[in-house]
């Protein structure tokens, strides 16, 4: 290698270091700017919420608009079904039939008193929140309920789901 070639090589090497520092700085800077847009703290309502004194629950459907949650009471048992459509997040409507009806859904005959229908894209859910028509990829989630020992109030935890036959017995 001639002296000139060595010089050229050194020059190329230094150039690359310069590029690395330049692009690295800019890249790091903008990565930092971008990162600032990912919130570290959310001032959102909690997932675990105190709802109501179970004594005041109506028999049948109770809607909690702030939580977008249906709480059902039947014969001393309560359970909670989300009102958030699993397709694209609209609030589903509670559609009562007024009486128990037999309906053939997905080849099976089931008894129902109500259903959930979504106004946005027409997803339809059974009484238990199972999807049977429309675009929603899954059924409505059921959330666990508990009684707050201090106040005796009903508490819902929307951070975890339970199976659809889950029930809380009120004493």
């Amino acid at each position, binding site marked *: 290698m001639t002296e000139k070639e060595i010089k050229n090589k050194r020059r190329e090497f230094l150039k690359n270091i310069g590029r690395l520092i330049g692009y690295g700085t800019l890249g790091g800077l903008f990565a930092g700017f971008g990162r600032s847009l990912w919130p570290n703290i959310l001032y959102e309502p909690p997932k675990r919420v105190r709802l109501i004194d179970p004594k005041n629950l109506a028999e049948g459907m109770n809607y909690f608009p702030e939580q977008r949650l249906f709480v059902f009471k039947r014969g001393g048992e309560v359970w909670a079904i989300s009102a958030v459509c699993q397709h694209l997040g609209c609030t589903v409507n509670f559609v009562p039939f007024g009486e128990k009806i037999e309906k053939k859904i997905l080849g099976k005959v089931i008894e129902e008193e109500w259903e959930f229908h979504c106004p*946005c894209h027409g997803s339809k859910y059974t009484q238990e929140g199972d999807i049977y028509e429309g675009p929603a990829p899954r059924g409505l989630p059921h959330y666990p309920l508990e009684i707050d020992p201090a106040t005796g109030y009903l508490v819902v935890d929307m951070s975890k789901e339970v199976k659809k036959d889950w029930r809380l017995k009120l004493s």
Partner: protein
Amino acid sequence: MKERLYQVWRALIWTFDPADRGEAGKAVTRNFWLHWFPPRMTKESLSWGYSLWLGTISAVLFFILVITGIILMFLYVPSVERAYQSIKDLEYAVSFGWFLRNMHRWSAHMMVAAVFLHMLRVFYTGAYKNGMSHMAKRQINWVVGMILLGVTLLLSFSGYLLPWDQLALWAVTVGTQIARSVPFIGDEIYYVLAGGTRLDQNALIRFYTLHVIFLPALLLVLFSYHMWRIRKDEGLAITEQFSIARKKGEAVQPEMVFSTPWAVRRIVLVSLGTLVWVMFLSVFLKSPLEEPASLEWTPNPAKAPWYFLWLQELVAITTIRIGGFTLNGGFVGGVLIPAILGGAATIWAFIDKSPAEATGVWFHKSRLVQNLVFTFFVLIIVGMTIFAMYFRGPYWGIYWPWAWPELPEII
């Protein structure tokens, strides 16, 4: 003194009525607003029937939007507590507030339409082709144009949220949930778009900033590049017809006219026409404002703005279920299909190998097949829009527009 003032005026503004050829040429090169035009252009480039002036109309609408938008920024508060009230004030308390809002809204709707029609025009005239030119790279401008169409849609969409009424909230709920339905990265996209896990103040301020700074700035940069490229590409595609005719041995001489007053006159005409039309609509057609935004209940049916109705129709019918595997229609119809359609249209400019003669002419017979295929997709989109607009009723069911079912009061 008067003479001196006139000279200053002359120096600042172009002459509309040049005294000689020299002055006509200088008027263009020396004027900041005109220097992106060539001093002279072919008369055919200015034809009404070739370009339909849809690009100019889009640009004029954009400038109306910027001006009305800046005034609206003084009057609107991007806060969930006050946004709705400030729109109500615009409608009922601010002098001419209703007119500003209507103008902004109608210009926005018309801009979506104008940009889309501009895209159709460019396709049907083969205007992304280079013809005989060795310099032109018109495909690049087609790609830039497709991005501009996307930015226009994003601008409309981000503006939709701002009134914070039911219409706004549910349109944007669905829009952001479509982003969330992307596999793997959907939740992160939603998180940074909404600034959290639900639509609230963070989402409003983010959409506001996108709407008033980020997207307009992006659009302005791309638009400037779009205009600059027309000159780098040696003018509108229609001028290629002269080179083609000359190559065939025909003795055609394009009629060259000075940009001022020829182009300027038509631009002013188109601008005024567009402005008058927007004002006309704004005087007679009110902008809707629904009830304040509330996640507690969804209007039935909750319909997207007309330019997104075909997507709403798509997301409602494209959920894929294979055995236990389910792919949300939000992703298939809201992301995948539009991305494939948009992507295919964008790269088509590079794939189209029709002969040079098809450059800059409406419906050239050598492009018959591709024009038909393109029309087929356009008609599907238009058809789905009309279907969703008039034949979708409560719970997104299919009804005749005059036969919507009575719905029981929802508790």
